[in-house]
């Protein structure tokens, strides 16, 4: 099956999934004891007529299933409603999604660049002191709660003053030249990326080490050695390439856990991402925003898994897409 058809098929498969997710999140929101009009009712400047028309627009007097169809229809048209602060939900999401994607991609690049070489090194020097040291460190990296680590780094940043706290850009960002802009963003990204990379680094390094150890025992590696290939070629051409394939599948999982894990980190480090937006929405009981973030998060997760599957096809030609 060619890749475009495969993508199309996967998108078609994702549609029922998204519908179920949207129904579930709609039920969750409807179970909520919070009155979506409470904010407006408290505002003395809003007249009863306006409240009435808003009620009709949201369809709050209709049966629940009709409300759902109303909401779903608007969602497909791109109208996600208004947040409690009066801004359009879609605008707020659009402002945050690129930031979260930037953070996630930066974390994935950093983790892969660090974890894969470390994994290869520990597998090749199995049971050496450095390998044991890495095992201990990676166990610790997996165990530290992200928000706690973020907190520790935050204190470090405040004490030393080496890193900016919060945000993605410095004051006066618009007037910087492009190079300065780039380094400013990188400077702001260091702390959140460190927190999130530490969490996923450990798992990835272990997995790579385990995979490579398995592959090194396989028959084709023995064969390659037996026919007298230089050790470098055996390892980097035969063993590593095969050990990396299962890692690509992990890419999808990583994306999912990053989306979730990022929320707490973004909150502690005041990073303007989707997770923090969602958290603030939940705390302010801004239900339109919560609902939209749930769906957008789901769509991003499904897209991440799809990308992982397609990448796997590129690195491993034996995989058939069906």
């Amino acid at each position, binding site marked *: 099956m060619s890749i475009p058809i495969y993508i199309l098929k996967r998108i078609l498969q994702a549609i029922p999934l998204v519908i179920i997710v949207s129904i579930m999140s709609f039920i969750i929101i409807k179970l*909520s004891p919070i009155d979506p009009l409470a904010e407006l009712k408290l505002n003395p400047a809003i007249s009863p007529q306006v409240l009435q028309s808003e009620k009709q627009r949201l369809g709050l007097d209709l049966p629940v299933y009709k409300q759902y169809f109303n909401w779903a229809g608007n969602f497909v048209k791109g109208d996600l409603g208004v947040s409690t602060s009066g801004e359009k939900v879609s605008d707020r999401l659009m402002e945050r999604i690129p930031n979260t994607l930037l953070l996630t991609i930066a974390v994935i690049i950093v983790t892969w660049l660090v974890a894969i070489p470390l994994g290869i090194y520990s597998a090749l020097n199995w049971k050496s002191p450095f390998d044991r040291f890495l095992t201990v460190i990676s166990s610790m990296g997996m165990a530290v709660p992200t928000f706690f680590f973020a907190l520790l780094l935050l204190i470090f940043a405040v004490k030393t003053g080496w890193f900016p706290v919060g945000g993605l850009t410095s004051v006066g960002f618009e007037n910087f030249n492009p190079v300065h802009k780039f380094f400013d963003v990188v400077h702001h990204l260091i702390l959140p990326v460190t927190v999130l990379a530490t969490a996923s680094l450990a798992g990835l390094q272990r997995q790579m080490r385990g995979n490579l150890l398995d592959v090194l025992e396989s028959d084709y590696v023995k064969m390659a050695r037996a026919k007298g290939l230089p050790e470098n070629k055996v390892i980097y051409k035969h063993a590593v390439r095969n050990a990396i394939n299962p890692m690509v599948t992990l890419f999808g999982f990583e994306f999912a856990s990053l989306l979730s894990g990022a929320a707490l980190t973004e909150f502690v480090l005041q990073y303007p991402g989707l997770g923090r937006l969602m958290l603030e929405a939940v705390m302010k009981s801004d239900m339109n925003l919560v609902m939209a973030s749930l769906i957008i998060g789901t769509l991003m997760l499904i897209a991440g898994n799809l990308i992982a599957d397609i990448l796997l096809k590129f690195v491993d030609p034996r995989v058939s897409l069906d």
Partner: protein
Amino acid sequence: MNIFSKITNNKFIKKLTKDKFVFISLVILVFLYLSIAFAGFFAPYGKMFSDRRLSYAPPSKIFVIDQHGKLSLPYTYNFKRSFNPETFQMDFQLDRSHKYYLKFFSQGDEYKIFNLIPSKTHLVKVNSPGRLFLLGSDINGRDVFSRLFYGGQISLTIGFLALLISFPIGLLYGGIAGYFGGAVDNIMMRIAEAIMSIPGFYLLISLAAILPANMTSIQRFTLITVILAFIGWAGLSRVVRGMVLSIKNQEFVEAAKAIGASPMRIITKHILPQTASYVIVAITLSVPGYILAESGLSFLGLGIQQPDASWGNMLKEAQEYINVLYRPWLLTPGFLIFIAVLAFNLVGDAVRDILDPKSRARR
């Protein structure tokens, strides 16, 4: 043969404790669970104790050498709080007018062992109005050291309780889907996948947010447990379904069918027990996830609420980094979460290596 030597002679335990890291982890876990089981005894103060005059008091200083340079029984001084007009902060100075000797195994606030047996004996305390804050106090003047024990009671048990809900559901759900196959399987798995495809933490916070505010702490604890379980069952059910698909074609299942056993009986009595070793591994490996989820939720203020303690909500005060700069003792719950999760991870890995040799991540 007494029970202790029975346990140590057990083959499984022997294998498990061979690695020294795993052994230390087990010791730490036993220690943690013993200390929360007897929290009232180890904690100098009761659950509801607070001294508002001493908010954010630093850790008490324990002296064993008195002012004349002689060895003495351990004693401590109270803190005197005064406002420093230059730094605009509260200064805490030792009030050297009165010594308070540490009293071991003496009577103090009443508590109940296992919620049943009333007792007043505390491991260590000082007489009122002396205050013994081994790890300082929080904003309400509550003893952080005592609250670590009470917080542990929630943080370390909520994961297991959530497992008690999510695992039976996941097993049964996966079992039914795998056994019946076809349309049933299709619909059931789509629903499980839908839950899995919502980013877990987003789902967690939106579920926690819809809990009404006016609940008793028991109700809240129960509902948070249910929510944690709700996030966890879907992944398990998918794996179990996969295993059931291959188990259900084996001969012993055919035999059970031939005797006329009902599908539910076949699933629960014949098929699901076959997944036991995977399930045990999955349980040990998923406990830390629940602990982290609860602490994250409570950290945000969406989980366990004040005045109840949990390690997560104790860290909530540390959200203000200014607070932490001057009061580093507020971070102690974080280190405990870290230690508990690390210990569970190491034990979980070891259990997996023993029960599931195929997926061995070699040490």
